[in-house]
């Protein structure tokens, strides 16, 4: 009888809870603290299922390798997070606990995430802390890491869009570390010494440059205590990092072409785009990104692959805009239809000019905002994806932006979309990269 009453009470309480809409990342479910050593801890509680994603993000992406050979960030992250045999043995130790381990290297940060049944989370924190802060780096491990990265590089042949994107980063960023491939440059891998690795590791892998984040079936206060026990004993360090000076947008188009294993030309255009310090512009640029490529009625679809009898100009396309700590790029990359390279270039410039010259309609902007929301929901579908979002923004600014993001996007007006296009997408301020099919020298001469 008592059990029945309790069950009914639970039903009443739960229906009251379900009366509200569930935000994608509910601020009411998120808590944070900072340990005395400067380590940040962020928790998003979700108690429906007994699973937790716990991860560590370190502000040690390629942005921070300006004083080191290109690829040092990747080298260190691989040594610590990916090696099955390294001294930290982080990955095998976590795998043995029965969870799933993922790691990644971005331009601004590196991360490792562990997704597991809730019971093993306290133990995983000790493994993470030791693996992160107690790695003893030896010559033998450096040699093994170099071999592994060399082997990975040998087997990796970038698809045309990836190759085009890297060309655009190199053209747009010059000597800025954002020009370095996040996967590491082959020549850089050979130059990296044990001194570089230890210096980079000791400088950036310190508690006050790290955030520990959990999403799932944990209670925040209990988790803070567990993190304190596992990570609290490591001292903070002096990161001493000077941000590299920004990159100036070009005053006239920069053009570069290359040969690749492609049947038809791939055309890429990139403009400088806002960094996280200008959040309003970031939100407006996200809408530009969406208007350009999302859905069957996007600006690119209408122009490059029109319905009806009009000849199509392109076979596939990709648009990229990732928010970075410093200004990044808006990239439009297109696989042109046969003999349509010049027309594609012209069409892309016309689309961009259209965005600069007149504001988009309210109706179109509303549809774009709905798509941004849908994309945002899908990018935060699982606990590890929600963790990745919180970690991403915490590494470049603050996780808070992830919580406010949709409200900020919804506040953008058609005028602001036009203004951001005028501010960043100047008619002459673009980088143009072209990948053409590999051909014989005589044909090459004739094309020129």
């Amino acid at each position, binding site marked *: 009888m008592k059990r029945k009453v*309790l*069950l009914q009470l*639970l*039903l009443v309480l*739960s*229906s009251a*809870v*379900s*009366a509200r*809409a*569930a*935000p*994608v990342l*509910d601020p009411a479910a998120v808590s944070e603290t900072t340990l005395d050593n400067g380590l940040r801890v962020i928790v998003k*509680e*979700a*108690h*429906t*299922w*007994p*699973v937790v994603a716990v991860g560590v993000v370190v502000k040690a992406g390629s942005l921070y390798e300006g004083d080191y050979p290109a690829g040092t960030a990747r080298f260190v992250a691989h040594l610590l997070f990916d090696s099955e045999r390294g001294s930290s043995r982080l990955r095998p130790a976590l*795998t*043995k*606990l*029965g*969870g*799933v381990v993922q790691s990644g290297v971005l331009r601004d940060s590196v991360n490792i995430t562990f*997704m*597991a*049944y809730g*019971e*093993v989370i306290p133990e995983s924190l000790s493994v993470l802390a030791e693996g992160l802060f107690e790695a003893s780096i030896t010559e033998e491990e450096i040699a093994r890491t170099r071999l592994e990265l060399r*082997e990975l590089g040998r*087997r990796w042949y970038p698809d045309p869009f990836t190759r085009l994107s890297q060309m655009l980063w190199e053209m747009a960023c010059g000597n800025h570390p954002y020009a370095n491939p996040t996967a590491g440059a082959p020549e850089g891998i050979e130059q990296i010494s044990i001194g570089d690795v230890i210096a980079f590791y000791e400088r950036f892998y310190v508690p006050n440059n790290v955030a520990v984040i959990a999403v*799932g*079936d944990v*209670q925040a206060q209990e988790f803070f205590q567990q993190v304190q026990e596992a990570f609290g004993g490591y001292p903070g360090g002096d990161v001493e990092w000077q941000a590299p000076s920004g990159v100036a947008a070009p005053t006239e188009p920069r053009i570069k072409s290359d040969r690749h294993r492609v049947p038809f030309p791939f055309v890429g255009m990139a403009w400088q785009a806002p960094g996280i310090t200008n959040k309003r512009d970031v939100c407006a640029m996200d809408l530009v990104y969406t208007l350009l490529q*999302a*859905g*069957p*009625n996007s600006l690119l679809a209408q122009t490059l692959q029109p319905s009806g009898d009009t000849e199509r100009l392109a076979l596939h396309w990709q648009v990229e805009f990732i928010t970075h700590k410093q200004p990044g790029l808006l990239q439009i990359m297109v696989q042109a239809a046969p003999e349509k390279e010049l027309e594609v270039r012209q069409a892309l410039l016309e689309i961009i000019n259209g965005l600069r010259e007149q504001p988009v309609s309210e109706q179109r902007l509303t*549809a774009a905002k*709905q*798509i941004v*929301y*849908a*994309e945002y*929901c*899908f990018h*935060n*579908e*699982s*606990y590890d994806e*929600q963790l990745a979002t919180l970690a991403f923004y915490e590494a470049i600014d603050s996780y808070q932006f992830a919580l406010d993001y949709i409200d900020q996007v919804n506040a953008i007006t058609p005028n602001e979309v036009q203004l951001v296009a005028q501010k960043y997408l100047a008619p002459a301020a673009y980088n143009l990269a072209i990948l053409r099919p590999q051909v014989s020298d005589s044909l090459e001469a004739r094309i020129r």
Partner: protein
Amino acid sequence: MRACVTVVLAMLLATPVPAVQVCQTTLANGLKLVAVEDNSSDLVGIHVAIKVSGRQEPEHLHGVRALIQHQISEVVRSQIAANPALGALDVALGRTGAPSLFNVEWDFVEASVCVPTVELPKALELLAEALYVAELPEEGLANAKADMLGQRDKATTGVEGAYYLLRAALLGRPTGLETIYGEPTTLANITSEQLRAFRAWHYVPANTCLCLVGPLSEQKAVAAVEGAFGALPRGEANDWEASGPAVPYSRARVGSGLGLGQAVMVVGVAAPPVTEPEFAAGLVAHQILSGPNGRIQRDLALARSLGLTLAGRVPGAPPPIDVLPVVVEAQPYVAIWSACDPRRVEKVRSRLVEHLQAFIEGGVSDEELETARMRAATELATQLHIAQTSAALINRCQMFGANPESIANLPEAVATVTEEQLRAMATRWFAFDYVGVQMPE
């Protein structure tokens, strides 16, 4: 008719209470609905299963369900392309992949998608219209048949033929009924009228199970489904019966594949269905075998039998052997896939059977069991916490007769499986082995 139950997973008085709210109801037209409230994201997973199996296809219409699903995909694709207001839904379907939105299994057909909560009414309307009402495009039938024939060829002569042969061995299916795609002669003769008549007979609410998982109260979930499906006529429930049980003797089926460099073999044993209390132990057994640290990839003798020590293998590439995931279906199985030299097939088969039947003897170390339990619990809880996979899993449980509420307790059940339970499960289920082999021509 409606029974709403709160399943409390942990101690009732602990705070916050980890609870899974499972609501089960049946609409007036016979559609069975399970709704699970999960507020951890703003996405709703939708899974629709229609109980129409290969057994219900008359001999001259074998493959008709695959044709219908293909046509329904086309309907959805064209409706979205014609309506800009469905742009956000396009993102959802683009992510799912419209062709894979609709799937045909031997025992049922299904639609599976995940949408932002705000798009739920539109998505449900689109699905209801496409599955039960929309005119199937006459002009697309020839293309659909050509596509089915291509898929049938792949399924019978390619690598995946071994999976179909394993299932045919396990369930005692006769030659010609291994796949869901039909035979070239029957496919060619299926007419639009037959397609429509078959659909009108079987694709009805009375044969449908639907599951929603997302941030919806019971009332909102029921109202949303009522709004889209409630007005559909009930139709007649068919005489649906799921496959199984496994044949009570060991059995092998052998086929031949075009262009295969090696023999492709799947060796398996029956696993307990989700309605059995031993289901959790079956999941743990799978984890003991699978993965880079599992028994199969650690077995050096097996690696030698497969010829893995031969020069020319790509360093670091995964070995050509893996354990297939255990799926919720009428008669699940634990099975190992391998590609090997045709001359070594028997050697590899007997070694794999040894691995599978070793569970009957026990001998699982504490460490091995602990890792496997945690891996199985993680995998299950991970599936359940993602709206789309959760809806599919729970709806399949509903369809095959398990109480959907019991699924909430599964991760914990998996995390506490003992060696004795594992051995008892294996003794009952792992005695016979089933083999599907696709030999190179």
